[in-house]
C-alpha cells in the first residue's frame, strides 16, 4: 500500500514546488484555508506562482504571506477586497489578476477535475467577463464559454482525513476544497485530525481518497475575519 501520510507541511511539498507553478488553494476568506501548506509553499521559495483561490488572504495571513514575498505573479480569484498589499501591487502593475465570477471559478475547477475542457454559462453575459470568449445561443438565450482549470498542485484543507486520503469537511470550511482536490495533478491535504483507515462510515465521506496523494495532520490558527456576536440578553 502506498503511503500518503507525511509528517510536516514542508515534507508534504518536497519535490512538488517549482518556479512558474500553478497552485490552487482552498478556502473562502480565511475559512477553510490550508494555512500550514501555504506557509510551507512560501518557505519553498518557489517564484512566479499562478495562484487560483477565491480570495487572496489578508495582509500577513493566508495567501497574503506569498504576496508579501512577491512569490505570486498572477491571481485567479473572485474577490480580493480584504488585502491592501494585493491592491497596491495590482494598481502598481506588479501583479496580474484574472477576476472570475465565483460560480464560474467553482465550476471551472470542477470541470478541470472532471476532464471537462469547457462549458457554457449565462453568468457574465454582456459584461467585461464575456470579452473575447466564444458565445453560443441555447433556446434563444446567449451563453459564454468558460474553460476548465487544473493546477500543478492543489492545496486543500479538510476537517478529518484517513490514511488513505478519504476526507470530511467541516461546515462552511468546505467551500472550494472538494473541487480543488480533484483538479490538482498532485493534491496535498492538511487536516485537523488524521485517523486510521476504516474510521469513517463510507456513507459520509465527502472526498474519496483517489483524489488525494499526500496528507498531513497540522494545527491551524483559524483566524476569524469578521467576528460578529450577539448579546446573551437579546431574546431571539
Amino acid at each position: 500500500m502506498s503511503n500518503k501520510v507525511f509528517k510536516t507541511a514542508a515534507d508534504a511539498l518536497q519535490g512538488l514546488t517549482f518556479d512558474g507553478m500553478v497552485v490552487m488553494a482552498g478556502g473562502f476568506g480565511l475559512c477553510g484555508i490550508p494555512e500550514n501548506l501555504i506557509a510551507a509553499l512560501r518557505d519553498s521559495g518557489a517564484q512566479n506562482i499562478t495562484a487560483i483561490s477565491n480570495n487572496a488572504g489578508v495582509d500577513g495571513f493566508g495567501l497574503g504571506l506569498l504576496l508579501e514575498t512577491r512569490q505570486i505573479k498572477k491571481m485567479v480569484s473572485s474577490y480580493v477586497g480584504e488585502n491592501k498589499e494585493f491592491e497596491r501591487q495590482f494598481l502598481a502593475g506588479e501583479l496580474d489578476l484574472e477576476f472570475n465570477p465565483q460560480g464560474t471559478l467553482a465550476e471551472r475547477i470542477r470541470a478541470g477535475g472532471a476532464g471537462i475542457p469547457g462549458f457554457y454559462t449565462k453568468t457574465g453575459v454582456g459584461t467585461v467577463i464575456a470579452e473575447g470568449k466564444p458565445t453560443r445561443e441555447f433556446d434563444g438565450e446567449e451563453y459564454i464559454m468558460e474553460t476548465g482549470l487544473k493546477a500543478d498542485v492543489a492545496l486543500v484543507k479538510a476537517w478529518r482525513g484517513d490514511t488513505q486520503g478519504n476526507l470530511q469537511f467541516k461546515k462552511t470550511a468546505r467551500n472550494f476544497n472538494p473541487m480543488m482536490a480533484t483538479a490538482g495533478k498532485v493534491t496535498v491535504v492538511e487536516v485537523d485530525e488524521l485517523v486510521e483507515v476504516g474510521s469513517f462510515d463510507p456513507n459520509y465521506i465527502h472526498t474519496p481518497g483517489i483524489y488525494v496523494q499526500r496528507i498531513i495532520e497540522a494545527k491551524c490558527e483559524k483566524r476569524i475575519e469578521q467576528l460578529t456576536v450577539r448579546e446573551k440578553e437579546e431574546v431571539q
Partner: protein
Amino acid sequence: MPWTRDDMAKRAAQELKDGFYVNLGIGIPTLVANHIPDGVDVTLQSENGMLGMGPFPYADEVDPDLINAGKQTITELRRSSYFNSAESFAMIRGGHIDISILGAMQISEGGDIANWMIPGKMVKGMGGAMDLVAGVKRCVAVMDHTNRAGASKFLPQCTLPLTGRNCIDMVITDLGVFSRPEGEAKFRVTELAPGVEMDEVKAKTEADLDWG
C-alpha cells in the same frame, strides 16, 4: 420623509413569500433578515456553502469554520445543510433560488445592474454577484436613489462596468419602489416613500420610466 436604510430593508422583506429560498447581498440587503414578515418562513442561502443561515453566535459559540458570505461568524439552524462552492452555485445558476436581494451602484432603465467595480478606484471583485443576477429567478436591487453628489443612480445606461444585463425586476430606493412585470417592459413607480412627491422622483431620475 424618504426611507431610511432600515425602511428600505423592511420594504424589500415584503417581497419574500412563504417557502422561499433567498440570497441576501451585503449591506442593506443583509438587514432584510431582521424584517421577515410574521408567518413567512424562508430559508437563507449563503453562497460560500450553506442553506439555513442562523443568527450571529453568542460569544461562547463562535466557530471559525462557520461564516457567511460576508465572512461574519454565524450559526446553524435545525434545517441547515452544507455543501461545496460548485453545488452552491448550481443552486444559484440552475434557477433554484427564488429571490436575490442585492445592493447596486447603478441601475439602467433596461434592468442592467452595476455593483462590482469602479475603474481605477476600487479593485475588489464581483464575488458571486454576476452568478446571482444571471441565475436567480427574481432579482431585487436596493440602493439610494442618488449618489453623494446628488446625481441619479437610476440611469438610461450604466456608466460603470456591468454585473449583469436586463436582470433586475424591482428597484427599491429611498424614494420608492420601481417594478416591471415582464423582462422587457419599462419600470414604473409602484410606490412612493411617505411624503415623497412624484415630481421629486422625476427630478432625481435620469432613466426613462413609465410614469403612468
